[in-house]
C-alpha cells in the first residue's frame, strides 16, 4: 500500500470512486468509463512496434513526450478497454509532472483502488510493463 498523501487530488478522487464500487463488475464498468475518457489517447494509426508495450495479452501502445511547459505526457492506446482504462488512470497520474518525478513513479494507487483483485498475473505484468515503459521514457526525457 502506498501513502495516499503522495497522490494528486484527481488520483485520490479516482481511488475513492473505485473503493466505493460494490463488486468487481462495477470496477470493470468504471474502468470502461475511464477508457472512454483517456486524457491523452494514442490514435490507432500511431500504433507501431516502437511504442508497443510487451507483456500485455491485448495490444497496447504508449508514447511519451513533453508538453510546452516541460510536463510529461503519456499517450496510450489499447484494443482492450480494461487495459485502456488502466492506461487512462496512469496518464491522469503522470501527465503534467516533471519527467524526473515520473521516472520514480509509484503505481501503488492501483492497489488502493482495489484493482489488484482483478489484476491477474498476466495482466498485472502487462500493466507493470506499461508503467516500466513510461518510467524508462521519462528517464530519457529528463
Amino acid at each position: 500500500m502506498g501513502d495516499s498523501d503522495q497522490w494528486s487530488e484527481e488520483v485520490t478522487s479516482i481511488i475513492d470512486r473505485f473503493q466505493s464500487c460494490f463488486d468487481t463488475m462495477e470496477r470493470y464498468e468504471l474502468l470502461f468509463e475511464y477508457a472512454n475518457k483517456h486524457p491523452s489517447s494514442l490514435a490507432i494509426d500511431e500504433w507501431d512496434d516502437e511504442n508497443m508495450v510487451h507483456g500485455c495479452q491485448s495490444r497496447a501502445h504508449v508514447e511519451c513526450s513533453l508538453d510546452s511547459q516541460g510536463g510529461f505526457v503519456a499517450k496510450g492506446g489499447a484494443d482492450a478497454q480494461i487495459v485502456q482504462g488502466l492506461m487512462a488512470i496512469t496518464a491522469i497520474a503522470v501527465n503534467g509532472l516533471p519527467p524526473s518525478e515520473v521516472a520514480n513513479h509509484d503505481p501503488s494507487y492501483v492497489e488502493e483502488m482495489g484493482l489488484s483483485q482483478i489484476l491477474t498475473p498476466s495482466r498485472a505484468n502487462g500493466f507493470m510493463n506499461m508503467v516500466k515503459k513510461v518510467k524508462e521514457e521519462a528517464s530519457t526525457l529528463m
Partner: protein
Amino acid sequence: MPLDVELIRSQFPILQRTLPNGKKLVYFDNAATSQKPLAVIDAMSDFYKNYHANAHRANHTLADESTAALEGARDRISKFLGTSEGQMIYTGSATEAMNLVAYGWARYNLNEGDVVVTTEMEHHANIVPWQELSKERGIELRYVPIDTEKFTLDYDAMEVAIEGSSLVCVGHVSNVLGVRNDIERVIKMAHSQGARVAIDSAQGAPHEKIFFDDLGADFLSVAAHKMGGPTGIGCLLVSKDALSEMGPFLTGGSIVKRVSLEGTQFQEGYAMFETGTPRMAEAIGWGVAVDWLEENIDFEEAHKHVQSIASWMATRMRKIPGITVFGFPEMEEAIGVVSFLHDTIQAQDLGYLLDAGGFAVRTGHHCAQPLMEAMGVGSTNRASVWIYNTMEEAEAFVTHLESIVSKFG
C-alpha cells in the same frame, strides 16, 4: 444409464470453490485442462508420502513398489486406450508426443521431397514440428484447408493432398471448433496411398473412448491432463509396424542397453523413448484417472451430456446481440466446445468480464493461429464443457453473458 452429474461433481473438490470475488466457480475451460477427481490427487500424494523412489533403478523395496506402480499404470492406461502396454510411450505431453512422431519416426524415414500432410485446423503442436522438420530435411508440407461454411475439413482437398504422401497428421477434434474429424476416413485414405497416419487426440480422448488397435492409426497422441489426469504427462500410441521403424528422439539415461566411448546400444520398443527419470507420480495419477473414468463414466452418455449443454449454449448465445458463435456446436458429433466473439467487446475484456461472474473460459488464439486466420479472426473466447458441467451452469453463463452485453456492448 445417464450420468449422475451430482455424484461426479462431488468427487472434484475444486468445483466447490468460491473465487476471491465471492462468486462460485463455474469451470468452462476444460479444453485447456480438466479438473482432477480426488482419487487422482490422493494417489499422487500417497506415492510421495509412502513409496516415492526412482523406478527401474534399484533393488530396494520402495523402488520395487514405484516401478510396479509406474508399469501398472502403463498397463491400465494402454488397455483403456484400446491397445497393449508395448505400444504406449509415456511423454511429457501430447505436444511432445507429436514431436516424437516427427523426430523419432519421420526423421528416420523421410527424406528430401517426401510429403507430410497436415491441416489448417490443427493445434500448433501438429504444425510446428512439421515446419521445423521440413526446413531440416527438405520435406514437402501440404496443408488441407477447412471448409469455411461447414467449419469441417475439406475432405476433397485432403484426398488430393494425400496423393503421394508419406505421413498424414490430423487432429481428432478441433480445440477451437469442437468439430470431430472423420479420422476413420482419413486413415483409410492415407493407408490406401501407403502413408502412415498420426492422430492428435489431445481433445478427442477426453470425450470418446479410444480403441487404438481397432482404429488402425499408426500414431495417436493423448494428454492426461485433459481427461482427469495430472499435468506433465501424455503418451504416444504407436502401431507395431511403425514402432519398428522408429529411432531415438531424446537421448541419455534409461533408454540404453550399453554405453561405451565408442557408441551406444539402445533399448528396444517403448523403452527406447523414455529417457531420464520417469514421470512416476504423473503416471500413477493418470492410471487412477483412467480407472476412475472406467468406473464412473459411460462415454456415450458423457458425450450426450456434454453435447447437449454445448448445443444449448450455442443456440442461446447466437440470440444475444453482437455475439457470433463459430462452427456448429449443435451438431450431434460436436464435442462440447463453443468458440465465440462479441462484435464490440474485445475478447480479452469479455474473458475478464465473464471471470467477474465466476465463469472460467479461455481467451486467445488457442495455439491454432492458422485456423484463426482461416476464420478471419485473431482470437476467440471459448467455453468448453466436460462431464461435471451442468445445464444450470450453462444457464447461469448465458444469463451473465447477456448481462455483460447489455452493460458493455
